């Protein structure tokens, strides 16, 4: 553009002429300026009409309590839910909430919401087929579904559903297997926690459906020292119920040390030390820490001796805990030089042995658990761990000593998609090691450490509406192969039917098998994006007799459904929730519907009762009859409130107590562990897991190589995280154009790669790329991901790339949802032969994948 040069005289001429012209040109319709402040948004854009208590039970593990603010939008004159307001009295959220809670508000009014039942008329399923939807009433659709289900044997059906009370009763009464989609998030945590500490069923095992079934939270506010094994994933960046506590702890001086190949914004600001660990090697660091603590005897001796099984003797032959005839655990008494029940032993040996003892008249060699643990980690020196993990040896040693020094006010938080979760086949070993470190530091059930839920329970459906007769047995085989994993099958069948299933194998099971004919998807609103290798499930569903879904949106799973039933929005349901993720105090919070579900929406409880009454009425009536007048009420919330003496019923709780109750008594350290742990009534943490020994897996934490390895061009370890404003691929968020814009401006739709790796591949910022799984890992139905790269040194290593979960719907019925790639396309379905040798729970896998990145 050329430079404008004007003389002063010219300027005056132009200015004068312009002003004169302006003066004589008619300017119509001008109005006087109003008061500036008035015109410039000095008034609220809405007028509040009511505030309705709600609980965020689906966005993450926090379950924040807040109010949904309803008001009249002054521009439109329409009354609607406007926004959220915090509830400072809630122990979890303390007046905070996150962007997802706000997104849910607008999700209620999303024009793509499913408000009527859909019925397929074109029998051919698939993404390229027009289903020929016709609308029917939900009642009519359900009647037709029931008639079709009746045509099938129970072995031919599977429910893909979380273990909520109604799903459980429905599946058990029909004698149908349930495969739980939550596996990929927290199956590892659930089973390890169950096998080491919480020992379900126990007095606090609650029917409240919370996302991880954990009975504890972490005292981020009061802890002195935290170790994060990948805890600071991008998804954590949005979890207000956790973050408000972490921030308080940080301001109080908590030291945070993290290991993560990614440098997240939380690491930028809140971590004192961050080490870009090699993906999948966290276990080496954790084992080295265990070794240092035991060798240097810097563990919490009182806790280890009195609240764990460290002194319990293990039979060297059977590999199980030794018990007396009453089932009491036995220890070696160093005072009396004999085996004694642990609860009456004054001087239990923590090391030494083998001791010769007599069990059932037979002489056996016995070794204390802690001694076995020490032997397991004898080669795990800090130098050895440093070689594997790239975390310096001196750091491992120093951090371990600092952790021990700060104990018991320490914690190693682990939830969902942290490395201790579903990430690797070795995740179960890491989870085992982390729980062991919690035990060695005495931080379990301790203020400033791991807080146990206590003093509150919501009963199970069976407690308030007892069964007239026992449930029928479940089919011997499960389409998700759970029956091939005795560790998880036993808990599911005998202890906790709500336990997570093997969803990472359901696609393989349906694709390879021919027994299943009916598949039920209980949303909730995530469709195929919640699955790994959904292409296998898609293919499998094409051959089914009946597929139906209960969903908030017509997401991409409906391409394969015969019927889709419209679900209410989460703010259209009542709730009662325990404060599980910061259970410092016994507490209950309630939520009431913000509005009546629009259209022909139908609740899951109503669906379960209707199917139950039609197909197994004896389990759904108060007297075991078929009389629909006697259908069970299922009011667990009222029962919980009454049992605790909080209120007579939910209505009274909501109206007279604003739906919140907190018993602010001081936390009693180690009290709950005694009540729920192993060896009750003197409950303990069980470091040594007999169930693993039974299936020839390591009963104590031990090193194992990663399941998979880099190979040729397939050299990038696949890391997955999620934007703070996404939850799986819930269309509440990804069908929101404003959130999509936020995502795009933060590169969430890109493949993140380190500058060095990008340079080596000749990639520039924004270049289109194809990401492909090693075909040796994904032998069938590969579906490479197409995207563009974002080059960033937040990827701190050159041996990994980052993808974002929670995007990538393909439904043409979502106007903004068909956006981004789907990470699950790159993660192969598991199957028993590949999983069993590595993982007794079958829950780890998701990031045990190596990929190739190439310019598209």
């Amino acid at each position, binding site marked *: 553009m050329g430079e404008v040069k004007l003389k002063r005289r010219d300027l005056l001429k132009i200015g004068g002429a312009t002003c004169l012209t302006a003066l004589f040109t008619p300017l119509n319709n001008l109005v006087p300026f109003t008061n500036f402040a008035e015109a410039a948004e000095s008034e609220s854009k809405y007028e509040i009409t009511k505030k309705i208590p709600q609980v965020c039970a689906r966005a993450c593990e926090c379950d924040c309590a807040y109010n949904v603010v309803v008001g009249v939008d002054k521009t439109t004159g329409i009354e609607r839910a406007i*926004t959220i307001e915090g509830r400072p009295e809630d122990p979890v959220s303390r007046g905070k909430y996150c*962007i997802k809670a*706000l997104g849910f508000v607008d999700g209620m009014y999303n024009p793509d919401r499913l408000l009527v039942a859909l019925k397929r008329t074109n029998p051919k399923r698939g993404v390229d087929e027009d289903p020929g939807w016709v609308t029917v009433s939900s009642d009519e659709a359900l009647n037709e579904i029931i008639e079709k289900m009746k045509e099938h044997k129970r072995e031919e059906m599977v429910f893909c559903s979380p273990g909520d009370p109604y799903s459980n009763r429905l599946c058990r009464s029909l004698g149908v297997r349930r495969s739980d989609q939550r596996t990929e998030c927290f199956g590892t945590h659930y089973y390890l926690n169950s096998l080491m500490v919480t020992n379900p069923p126990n007095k606090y095992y609650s029917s409240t459906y919370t996302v991880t079934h954990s009975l504890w939270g972490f005292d981020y506010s009061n802890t002195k020292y935290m170790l994060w094994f990948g805890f600071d994933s991008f998804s954590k960046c949005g979890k207000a119920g956790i973050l408000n506590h972490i921030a308080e702890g940080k301001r109080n001086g908590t030291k945070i040390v993290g290991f993560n190949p990614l440098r997240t914004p939380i690491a930028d600001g809140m971590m004192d030390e961050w080490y870009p660990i090699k993906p999948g090697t966290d276990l080496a660091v954790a084992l080295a820490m265990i070794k240092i603590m035991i060798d240097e005897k810097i563990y919490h001796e009182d806790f280890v001796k009195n609240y764990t099984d460290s002194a319990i003797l293990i039979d060297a032959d059977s590999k199980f805990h030794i018990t007396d005839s009453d089932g009491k655990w036995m220890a070696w008494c160093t005072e009396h030089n004999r085996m004694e029940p642990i609860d009456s032993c004054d001087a239990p040996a923590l090391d030494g042995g083998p001791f010769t003892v007599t069990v059932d008249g037979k002489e056996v060699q016995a070794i204390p658990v802690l001694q076995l643990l020490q032997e397991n980690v004898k080669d795990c020196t800090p130098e050895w761990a440093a070689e594997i993990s790239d975390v310096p040896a001196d750091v491992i040693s120093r951090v371990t000593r600092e952790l021990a020094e700060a104990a018991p006010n320490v914690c190693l938080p682990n939830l969902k998609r942290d490395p201790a979760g579903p990430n690797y086949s070795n995740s179960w070993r890491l989870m085992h090691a982390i729980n062991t470190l919690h035990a060695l530091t005495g931080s379990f059930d301790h203020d400033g450490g791991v807080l146990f839920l206590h003093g509150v329970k919501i009963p199970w459906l069976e407690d308030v509406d007892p069964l007239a007769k026992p449930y029928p047995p479940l089919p011997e085989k499960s389409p998700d192969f759970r029956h091939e994993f005795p560790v998880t099958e036993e808990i599911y069948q005998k202890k906790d039917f709500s336990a997570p299933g093997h969803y990472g194998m359901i696609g393989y099971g349906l694709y390879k098998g021919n027994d299943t004919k009916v598949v039920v998807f209980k949303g909730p609103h995530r469709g195929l994006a919640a699955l790994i290798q959904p292409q296998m499930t898609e293919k499998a569903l094409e051959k089914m007799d009946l597929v139906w879904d209960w969903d908030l949106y017509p997401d991409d799973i409906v391409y394969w459904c015969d019927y889709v039933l419209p679900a209410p929005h989460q703010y259209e349901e009542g709730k009662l929730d325990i404060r599980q993720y910061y259970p410092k105090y016994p507490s209950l919070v309630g939520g009431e519907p913000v509005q009546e579900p629009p259209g022909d929406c139908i609740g899951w409880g109503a669906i379960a009762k209707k199917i139950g009454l039609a197909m197994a009425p004896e389990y759904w009536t108060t007297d075991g009859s078929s009389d629909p007048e006697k259908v069970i009420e299922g009011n667990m919330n009222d029962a919980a409130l009454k049992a605790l003496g909080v209120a007579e019923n939910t209505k009274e709780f909501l109206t007279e107590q604003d739906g919140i109750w907190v018993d602010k008594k001081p936390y009693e350290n180690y009290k709950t562990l005694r009540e729920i742990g192993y060896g009750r009534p003197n409950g303990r943490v069980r470091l040594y897991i007999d169930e693993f020994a039974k299936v020839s897996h390591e009963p104590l934490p031990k090193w194992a190589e990663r399941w998979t390895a880099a190979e040729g061009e397939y050299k990038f370890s696949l890391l997955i995280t999620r934007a703070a404003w996404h939850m799986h691929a819930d269309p509440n968020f990804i069908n929101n*154009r404003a959130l999509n814009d936020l995502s795009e401006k933060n590169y969430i739709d890109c493949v993140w790669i380190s500058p060095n790796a990008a340079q080596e591949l000749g990639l520039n910022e924004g270049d289109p790329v194809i990401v492909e799984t090693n075909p040796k890992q994904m032998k069938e139905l590969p579906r490479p991901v197409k995207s563009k790269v974002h080059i960033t040194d937040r990827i701190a290593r050159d041996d990994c790339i980052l993808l974002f979960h929670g995007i990538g719907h393909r439904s043409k019925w979502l106007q903004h949802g068909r956006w981004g790639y789907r990470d699950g396309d790159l993660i192969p379905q598991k199957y028993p032969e590949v999983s069993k040798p590595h993982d007794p729970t079958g829950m780890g896998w998701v990031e045990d994948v190596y990929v190739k990145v190439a310019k598209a």
Partner: protein
Amino acid sequence: MGKYAILVDTTFCTGCNTCYYKCIQENRLLESAERGIVRTMVFTKDNGLYHHRCMHCEEPSCIDTCPSGAFNKTPEGIVLYDNQPCLGCKSCVIACPFNIPQMDTEKGNIVKCTMCYHRVSKGEQPACVEVCPTDALEFGAYEDITNKAKQLAADNNLNIYGLEENGGTSVIILTKEDPVAIGYPEVSKSVTKARGPKAVVGAAAVAALAYAGIKKYSDRRAEIEGKKDE
């Protein structure tokens, strides 16, 4: 009411953008936000978090450059925009050294933060501050906020952005890394004067723009009135 300021301590910010969406709901801006026009957004950059939001300058360039008085600074230190006198000339868009005002061409108005004047004037905090999960945002008296910012910066070896930029602002941002390296605009400590059309062709150009803008406004108003009559 005295003068106010907002402290943004990015060492406690996680980039969750709850502030982004709360602002959208509080100010009923979803339709504009769907087109990418918003008052605040947090960007996750390589070296830290970039908060894109009006800095509410002591001597705002938008006020200085606006030919029609569409901007004003309240005694509380808040820079407000009024659509009514706005000519749509985008002088403010060009002039702002922080690249804040955005023209919403569909609605024909400038979009920028009001520091929730409607809440602040009632003694409440701005919505973004109230909602921040980690209290990385803090609202308070200007003196208190600037003193706290200086103290935190000294204690934790942080950079301060906004205290002196463009002659000083009412939004003070603390960062671990150099703010300019993160992505914050490099802004002179002295007030940026007339970066917009005034600097190019002087008063005549402003007059011409003013005329064009008023004419456009007048025509548009006629169009709206016409539609109302239909």
